[in-house]
């Protein structure tokens, strides 16, 4: 009984081996995905860590410059308005 079961088990294992064969992807799909993965012009391309860091620093610098520019510009405008009020003939 035990032997019969083992034999049955082996036969079933053989059936699995013959039934489950690898399935190849379409060559066009493989080529297309390869192109998308390594094409330097692809929009999905990954930045290296160095470039990412530089980009983040650039964004921070831009934001700081913007804030400084805004503050300076507003102070200049306020000064001009005050000057205009002082010098305005009554």
């Amino acid at each position, binding site marked *: 009984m035990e032997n019969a079961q083992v034999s*049955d*088990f082996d036969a*079933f*294992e053989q*059936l*699995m*081996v013959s*039934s*489950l*064969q*690898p*399935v*190849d*992807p*379409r060559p066009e*799909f*493989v080529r297309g*995905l*390869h192109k*998308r*993965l*390594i094409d*330097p012009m692809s929009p*999905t*391309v*990954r930045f*290296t*860590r*160095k470039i990412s860091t530089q980009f983040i620093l650039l964004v921070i610098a831009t934001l700081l410059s913007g804030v400084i520019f805004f503050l300076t510009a507003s102070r200049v405008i306020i000064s001009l308005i005050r000057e205009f009020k002082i010098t305005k003939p009554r």
Partner: protein
Amino acid sequence: MSWCTLPLLVRIVPDFSDEKALKLAAQGDQEAFGVLYERYVSRIYSYIYYRTGNQHDAEDLTARVFFRALRHVENYTDRGLPLSAWLYRIAHNLVANWHRDNSRRKEVPLDEIILVRHGGDHPEVVLIESEEKENLLKVIRRLPPDRQQLILLKFVEHLSNAAIGQVMGRSEGAVKSLYHRTLLSLRDDFNLILMSKPNDGEEFGYK
């Protein structure tokens, strides 16, 4: 200048080891990642194809596996886990999400898988064998996800128990034991389906 910056015509793709290619890929070398891609795309596709049952989703998920791997290759550290195990884990997680997102479980297009393998056989032989394999795939598709993963890694990808253990995060002994139990359950269910042809919706219990 690295080899990947040479003009296309004179470039020779070197026979990198996985480790070397991974190291270069982690430094942003996309050609090195391309070498790894060429090495594993068929295996990952085949695995996903059996798990999803259709070409369209298999292609979509395969693409996602490699884009995710590309995104995280910098963080991939060699923890004794082979690259293939890492890719199979990504694939397994994406397939699990895919099954969760799809409320209805799709059936494997069995004709597509099976008939293509028997182009030269007599039609009657093809029919009988196809039916047999159709039933086999049916019972495999009813297995819990981890058991499906085990069966596919074993029979489609031909991985050893140790390698399957690395993918599944289990010991070799645990894989061996699970494999034995799964195959016994599959055999019983297969015999059952041959004898009684149960409804598609009928669930089997797994020990």
